[in-house]
């Protein structure tokens, strides 16, 4: 059992996870000077979706989506469960791949990607085996070490802040609605947190919504600052604007290149995301097949993820193209369609069962 606060922090970090690294430049590319508005409405949408999930989990308390699927559809639920398992693995692999891409491009160009994957999987596996509390507490302890340096650096960077970069504002307010895949990633992926949801002591719903809201806020704030620091022209073109921002920060004349430290610290965000996803996948396996052992399945998952992370996409360009094409459909299927159907069938069944009792 984890506390409300821990769940809230998990939500925030999970949502920020890879977003800060991967999506920023695309957001700015599309939204130009008004880019900072896009995360806001995407977040609003995400909260709507979250409401649906909460409704679903409230309908049969203490059960995770997978268990609900079995309750709703019996054996067919197993298939749904497997679908979810694959989906979690997919996103997890994606997160892993983001780490290695990022590290390879920025500070460790020669290290083979799989090394990053394996190291992270080892640690994540160990953490997941220790159970839910460990995940919650780990995240709780790590968070200040993420928040503090990150925002300090952004504050320090504001020495070359320039309002001109954000002008003219509100040129094409509707342009920002074009980037639909932002709804899927990161916001719909937070569905993975619903595997943790039943483990929260109380008030998980509020924590989830609040977490999504504050995550959306902070993404938009980051986009805003990045735009104001690099200007839309550069930020839209640079692959990892965050990296450039921290790279150009200078503490006096002495400490000029602190980016590697910050990068390595920020990577932890992605680790948290991976952690939750691995946990979700692991839980799914457990709830579907009720195995007795823990380690072997994490080992298997690690093998699967480490492989999937390599083949998830061939090159960044293909990733961008396909991402735009499939993400939204893929996520909507898992996080809107199936839950809605489950909710529907549950309601129907309850209605049918309750009728004879009324007699």
């Amino acid at each position: 059992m984890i506390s409300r606060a821990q769940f809230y922090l998990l939500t925030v970090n999970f949502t920020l996870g890879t977003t800060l690294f991967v999506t920023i430049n695309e957001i700015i590319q599309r939204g130009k000077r008004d880019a900072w508005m896009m995360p806001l409405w995407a977040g609003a949408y995400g909260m709507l979706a979250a409401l649906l999930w909460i409704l679903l989990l409230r309908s049969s308390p203490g059960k995770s989506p997978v268990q609900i699927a079995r309750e709703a559809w019996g054996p067919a639920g197993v298939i749904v469960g497997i679908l979810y398992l694959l989906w979690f693995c997919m996103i997890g692999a994606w997160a892993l791949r983001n780490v290695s891409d990022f590290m390879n491009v920025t500070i460790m160009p020669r290290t083979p990607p799989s090394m990053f994957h394996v190291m992270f999987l080892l640690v994540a596996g160990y953490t997941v085996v220790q159970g839910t509390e460990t995940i919650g507490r780990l995240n709780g302890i790590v968070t200040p070490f993420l928040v503090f340096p990150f925002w300090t650096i952004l504050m320090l960077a504001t020495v070359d802040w320039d309002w001109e970069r954000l002008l003219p504002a509100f040129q094409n307010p509707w342009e920002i609605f074009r980037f639909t895949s932002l709804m899927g990633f990161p916001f719909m992926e937070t569905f993975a947190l619903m595997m943790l949801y039943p483990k929260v002591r109380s008030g998980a719903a509020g924590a989830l919504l609040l977490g999504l809201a504050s995550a959306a806020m902070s993404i938009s704030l980051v986009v805003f600052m990045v735009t104001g620091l690099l200007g839309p022209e550069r930020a839209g073109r640079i692959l990892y604007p965050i990296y450039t921002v921290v790279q150009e920060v200078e503490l006096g004349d002495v400490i000029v290149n602190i980016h590697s430290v910050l990068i390595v610290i920020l990577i932890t965000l992605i680790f948290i995301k991976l952690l939750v996803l691995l946990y979700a996948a692991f839980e799914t396996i457990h709830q579907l097949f009720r195995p007795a052992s823990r380690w072997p399945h994490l080992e298997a998952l690690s093998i699967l993820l480490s492989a999937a992370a390599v083949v998830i996409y061939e090159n960044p360009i293909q990733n961008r193209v396909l991402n735009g094409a499939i993400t939204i459909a893929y996520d909507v299927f898992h996080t809107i369609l199936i839950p809605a159907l489950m909710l529907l069938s549950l309601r129907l069944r309850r209605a049918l069962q309750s009728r004879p009792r009324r007699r």
Partner: protein
Amino acid sequence: MSRRQRAAAAVLALCAALLTSCWDKVEINELSLVSLAGLDRDPESGIYTVYLQVINPATGASAQGAPGGEQSPVYTYAASGKSLAEAQVTFYKLLPRRMLLHHTKAVLISERAARQGMRDYMNFSELQPDARTSIPLLVVDGSIAEVMRTFTPLERNPADSIVSRLDLMYDFTLKAGRRIELRDVIERVEREEMVVIPIVAATSKTGHLNSFDVNAEIDANRNQLRVSGGAVIRDYRMVGRLNEGDLVLYHVLTGEKGRFVRRFPFRGGHITVNMRSRRMEQRLDWQDGKPVVRIRLQFEFSTIAMKEYFPQTLDELKKLEQHLNQVFAEELKTFVNKTRGKGWDLLRIRSLLHRKAPNLPDPDQAASEAEIKIEVETRLRGMGNLGRLYDGAGGEP
């Protein structure tokens, strides 16, 4: 497999991983610290020549007070190739250690390369994750090869020497601005603005000298580098120069804050004023469909340099201030007109229009025919150590 065995297995696996090679590992004495980079491109053959100044670590042990004797503080390598990347890798024909670009302090680019256009170079350096773009970019007047092979006295590392000079010039003469880094050039040009970057040149030389000779030579004006003047950049191309006087005006008009000394005609003679620019604001309004840009400049000046005249009464002071306002405004106007005559939009009127009135049909047209009104406001702050000047005969004629 018990938990203990598991742990053992995990440890073994880790060690096995450790035994394999460590990919990004490189010892610091297998590195060459690049402190200054130079770029040249031959217009005819289109061959790039890249110069790198690599710090000689043997001279670095200066903390113990033993600056590496007669060794050169830096070594200059040059390599050329059809493309920058080729040139970069060609270095390893000469360079025994891996390049480390993170510590590069400044980038020089030869005038002819700048005039051909440096977009490709900018892209290249932005592509390299280890090449920071937050370092100043300077145009080299004359042969870059010579500049790259020139020692600087006192500050033994030329890059440091140049950078600290830029700072000093900004603080005391306003002949160098703040926005002269690669990233600024990129950003400004991408916004279709113009930007002026400093020019560096080698001073007259007395034969070929080594570092020891340079440090032994008393005349520090020779055999070293001089930073003076500005190169006007538009669309990644150098389109012209600004002389030092104009450079000050340019920086004042673009809102750089700093001190400078200027000599104005006054009562037949002249008056030298030590000025400090306080604030600059551009306002845009429209008169019968034509944009009018109002530029208000505020300065503080001190009597510290005013050896010719010292106002005693308030209305004398007011007169002086009004005079300065009017004269300075005149100078600024003439400067602006001169540059606009050349078709240079140094005041970034166009992007002002773009910001304030984004959907103009033809911003360039509007920018070119926008009217510019400059008003200057000077105030006396700060004093020298004289309450009234000695007024014996025998001043400057």
